[in-house]
């Protein structure tokens, strides 16, 4: 279980629980992995300012299904970590 962080703290898409929503603040900033596919994430529609929500998680908690721009995209946890969320945190 991911620890419950303050709702206004900077966190990543990987920290959200099923049903949580958030606004993307940045993609791939201070990303530790140089081979990261951050550009591809943005091309898929994960651009700053977009609202995202976690639709479902697989039984192993990874990958997660994320809704963005009216589409559901499954991402591995490592990929979801590249997406920083500035949550104005409301639950659906």
């Amino acid at each position, binding site marked *: 279980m991911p620890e419950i962080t303050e709702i206004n703290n900077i966190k990543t898409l990987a920290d959200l629980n099923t049903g949580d929503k958030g606004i993307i603040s940045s*993609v*791939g900033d201070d990303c530790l992995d140089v*081979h990261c*596919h*951050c*550009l*591809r*994430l*943005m*091309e*898929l*529609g994960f*651009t*700053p300012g977009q*609202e995202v*929500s976690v*639709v*479902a*998680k*697989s*039984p*192993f*908690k*990874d*990958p997660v*299904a994320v*809704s963005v*721009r*009216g*589409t*559901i*995209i*499954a*991402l*591995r946890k490592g*990929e979801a970590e590249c997406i920083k969320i500035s949550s104005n945190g409301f639950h659906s």
Partner: protein
Amino acid sequence: MGFTAKNENCHEPKPFKTLTTDKKLPVIVLIGMPNSGKTTLFNSLTGSNYKTSNYPGATVEYSTGKFKSGFGFDAIVLDSPGIISLNPSSPDEIITINGLFNHPKFGQPDEVIVTCDTTQLSRQLFLIKQVIDAGFSTVVALTMNDLLLKKEFEVDITLLSEILGAPVVKINSAKASGISELVKKVSEQYKENFILDKRINVVQPVNPKEEDVALLYDFTEETERKVLKPANTKLDINEINKKFFDLHRKPDAISAKLDKFFLHPFWGMLIFIISMGIIFTSIFWIAQPLMDLIDSGFSSLSHSVSHLLPQDTWYNNLITNGLINGFGSVMVFVPQIVILFILLGLLEDTGYLARAAMLVDKPLTKFGLNGRSFIPMLSGYACAIPAIMAARTISNRRERYLTIMIIPLMSCSARLPVYGLLLAFLVPPDKPWIAGIGMGALYLFSLISGSVVAGIISKFKETEEKSTFMLELPPYRVPVFRYILRNTYNKSLVYVKQAGPIIIIISLVLWALTFFPNYDLKLPREKTSGLTEEGISKLEESARLNNSFAAIIGKNVFEPVLKPLGWDWRIGVSLISAFAAREVFVSSMAITFAITEEDEANIQGSLLSAMREAKKSDGITPLFSIASTVSLILYFMFAMQCLSTAAVCRKETGSWKIPLLQIGLYTLFAYILSLTAYNVLNFIGIN
């Protein structure tokens, strides 16, 4: 004919624009994001007349067809895999995108049709804008307009066309509406470019930055806001805004409801297990009667042909045992391939395949595999050949090759008769349940060994391509069965045409090895007295095989190698024959041990007693001990004893590297394992 006149006067070096000669038809390329309705459109444009090929030296597939004659515009249409953007992020995408800009066979396209799912306008306009900016002469085909209408919006195509600077057409492939209008726009634009003699200069975008992507999305979002018009004019502005907001933020409502179920930690897994169970039983049990039918069809064909041709001639045997049987061994896999591709098509087109991959991705990543490796691995338990073909659904090349690499380790159905015979030898006849447990253990062990091998290879092989998942879970849709069948037909045809010849050549070589040089063999009377004609021919067959090139190789090359495992040349000959297919081992053993039994049910019994009586070359020690039989089972678990699999592997990976690696590595490993087991068992006194 003004066009031709112009063409004659023009000193164009390339015969690039010729409207009247059909030597070089206009080339139209279809592009679109995955799930944007691109392949369905391709089907409507070309009808059933298309073929699937690979880019040279690569395993990326594209389809080519011609516009249906009813459209009145003759052109070649190309369909390649769906892309997200023009910036490739994997080796396969590089091939696809380079193929768009400069196709190895067709060059640069004259016109490009981009499909666009209107329910995801801001995402899909991204690719369209890139394509137009790259300089292609583009026509936009808007799909899923009825779904958008259900959400009470429609696209203002005049405005969109103005903003993009390209013609825009609404289409519905299922109802075949808008298709001829689309073709009309394409042909008009093509002719206009031709008259104006407009050279199309395309420029591939170079290393775009994140800011570029963000800017492009600003454009698509703005465009979306402009061109989406409420379908119901009675709504007030607040309702419209709310609906627009929903369209943007909320995925398809029905899919969201279904996903609560299909992606549920418990129910989702249950549905997954049931659907995988259905796939497994279908390719295992439903295909079996069809395979038997093909098998008996070819043997009765071979029988009747044999009677028509002069008896006891080498060419009679070549045609019946070599060619017809070789062709039969190609066709026998077709039922499994057809069933597997129909099921895969259903899973893919309903939208479930992506979800199934998501459910099991995590455990498979531990072994360097992908969620999509699961179905190929499962299919490998029926037969490696359709399984290797099913690995096409894995988009990451490294993970696809790794999956293909381990598929031959899965305990395929051709191993069943071999294990059946050998376990029956090991187990006391009054306790057949031990054999059942043994069989179960062999199945489980093959899964473990496959995963371990994948894990080891992925640790040692350097990563050229980062493993990513990033898979769109498309809205659930009702599949169009007609397209699935057509697709399956095309894929099966590719198998028969491309892997078939290799399999036939291999079986002809194996036939020659087991038939020559003593093909014209006659047994002396005293040896055959009291036997029926059938019995005599079986004895002759045995004598022929035991004096064939295969036996010579078996005695001189294999015997010294196989002796440390406790085997002799007779097992060696059967192993050579079993390269055609593993189950041939049993019938080949029956021939080498000269079983004259005619009733098929008794063959195993007679073979078992022959195995118990068989002695080594010293004439005293039994050939089949517990130790040598166990080592034989271990050998069959790992050895790449199936050249048809190697042929399909060659076809699917585009080179001999992986099949040769499988033959070399797995056979060597099988040998070492069998050797160790034989010696350890003898050492501890089990023999």
